[in-house]
């Protein structure tokens, strides 16, 4: 590792910690800590939502998948972009307004409880549990990404790399909470964007241009050039269905709640979608040019070893750039990882502080006490994620896929119906969450628990979010119809959320 690369990298890390310390001074209560006191501008909210969303998956997972499967993998990017757009278009403003109307809710479990006037706290417990379980997997996927980065770039062992990455991330989330996370996400979002534009452009130019790249890829296997080659209905639907996950991701929808005004949302949507689509193109083309570059006849001289396809972006930074730029690009990868993990740790810690500690253990806890419980929660949850990430066989894409489906199915249908369906009740929400979460867990284990394999029954090859989402939707509607109708106060708040301007 060149000294220049290390210096650039350290400058980046010190800058992130400085933001954490500055935000620490502006954080005085739990609302500040988990939601930044609802004062995010449109651009910060947009890049923050994008950077929290697009984790190491964007810089490591997607280019790696493209490297293995060629253009057949672009369906997932299309599905995600459509899902993100629909989320901004339909959920963002309504959620911002409704969380304010529903007793100024600051977390998703808080919103569900206030939306359905649930005095039993059962909605809060179940949703906090869903958050804690699936974020443990999600956060560990980021830690695996961090470990891959430090291992491949700095020659550390996997375990050393895991701990160093975790310590850096925890320290600034611990200090600054939401403001630190959103501000750093903003800078990290810009850094990721630049890296995803620069790397494929330089790599294509090293190959001699676009036509030469396409020819080289086609000479390896023409199937890489066709998004439809070998595509099956179940495969394509499964990849597109990733977009459904957006409606239930707590770390993303939290950004909608934190926007300072609904008037900021159209700007945030335009900035966010531009960022996302261009970043996805960057990741797609990085993977695509990688097929030609890292092949027996390409400038890389040989293909990447089996199982290390997710290090493609890291390998490009090492072979294509001078050490100063390489340091900056490695910082961008760490940005992608950090900006997602920090948001997830924060949502998990708010589930512990607001939903479990204040809800059950000490109802009269002071704001200062809650902020500290949240901070300790960050450390505890990070330790659980580190334990899960200890298995170096885990791939970023698999871990993300599982957690993404869990949230999408458990929270997605419930959140959409809660925002747009007046007749929705607490029992419906509860049924939707439980059915969605359990379907994802069981569907993923059908083969190991029941011996049912996709080879025998092709339909079982569907991504688990699809059955989870559909069954949760049906359960939420059925259980809402079966029980009592919503109270007049609930209906009144529902109507208010449609008309209020905040």
């Amino acid at each position, binding site marked *: 590792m060149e000294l220049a690369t290390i210096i650039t990298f350290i400058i980046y890390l010190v800058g992130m910690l400085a933001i954490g310390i500055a935000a620490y001074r502006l954080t005085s209560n739990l609302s500040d800590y988990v939601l930044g006191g609802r004062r995010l501008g449109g651009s910060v909210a947009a890049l923050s939502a994008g950077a929290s969303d697009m984790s190491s998956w964007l810089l490591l997972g997607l280019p790696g998948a493209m490297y293995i499967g060629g253009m057949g993998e672009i369906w997932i990017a299309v599905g995600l972009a459509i899902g993100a757009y629909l989320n901004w278009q339909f959920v963002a403003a309504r959620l911002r307004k409704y969380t304010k109307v529903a007793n100024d809710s600051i977390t998703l479990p808080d919103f569900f409880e206030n939306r359905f006037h649930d005095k039993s706290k059962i909605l809060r417990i179940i949703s906090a549990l869903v958050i804690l379980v699936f974020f443990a997997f999600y956060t560990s996927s980021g830690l695996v990404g961090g470990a891959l980065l430090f291992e491949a770039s700095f020659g550390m062992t996997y375990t050393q790399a895991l701990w160093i990455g975790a310590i850096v991330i925890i320290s600034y989330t611990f200090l600054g909470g939401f403001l630190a996370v959103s501000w750093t996400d903003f800078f990290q979002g810009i850094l990721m964007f630049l890296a995803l534009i620069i790397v494929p452009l330089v790599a294509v130019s090293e190959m001699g241009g676009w036509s030469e790249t396409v020819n080289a890829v086609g000479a390896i296997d023409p199937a890489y*050039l066709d998004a439809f080659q070998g595509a099956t209905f179940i495969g394509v639907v499964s990849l597109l269905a990733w977009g459904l996950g957006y409606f239930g991701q707590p770390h993303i929808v939290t950004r909608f709640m934190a926007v300072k005004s609904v008037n900021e949302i159209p700007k945030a*949507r335009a900035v966010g979608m531009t960022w996302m689509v261009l970043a996805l193109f960057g990741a*797609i083309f990085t993977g695509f040019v990688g097929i030609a570059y890292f092949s027996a006849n390409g400038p890389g001289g040989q293909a990447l070893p089996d199982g290390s396809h997710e290090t493609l972006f890291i390998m490009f930074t090492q072979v294509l750039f001078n050490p100063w730029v390489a340091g900056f690009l490695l910082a961008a990868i760490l940005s992608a990882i950090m900006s997602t993990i920090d948001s997830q740790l924060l949502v998990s810690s708010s589930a512990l502080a607001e939903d479990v500690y204040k809800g059950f253990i000490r109802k009269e806890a002071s704001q200062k006490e809650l902020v500290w419980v949240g901070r300790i929660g960050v450390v505890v949850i990070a330790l659980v994620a580190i334990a899960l990430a200890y298995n170096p066989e885990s791939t970023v894409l698999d871990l993300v896929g599982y957690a993404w489906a869990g949230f999408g199915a458990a929270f997605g249908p419930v959140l959409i119906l809660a925002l747009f369906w007046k007749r929705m009740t607490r029992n419906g929400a509860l049924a939707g969450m439980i059915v969605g979460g359990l379907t994802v867990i069981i569907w993923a284990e059908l083969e190991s628990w029941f011996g049912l394999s996709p080879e025998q029954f092709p339909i079982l090859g569907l991504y688990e979010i699809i059955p989870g989402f559909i069954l949760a939707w049906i359960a939420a509607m059925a259980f809402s119809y079966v029980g009592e109708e919503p109270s007049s106060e609930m209906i009144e708040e529902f109507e208010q959320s449609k008309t209020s301007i905040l």
Partner: protein
Amino acid sequence: MEYGLTTATWLLLFIPMPLLIILSFVSLFMRRSE
């Protein structure tokens, strides 16, 4: 032999995703003009 991306692949790459950017800006400008 010359290779190229198939037409369907080009369409899938350059229609749905850029269209989302356009729609976002259209709704932004419509909101501003209101």
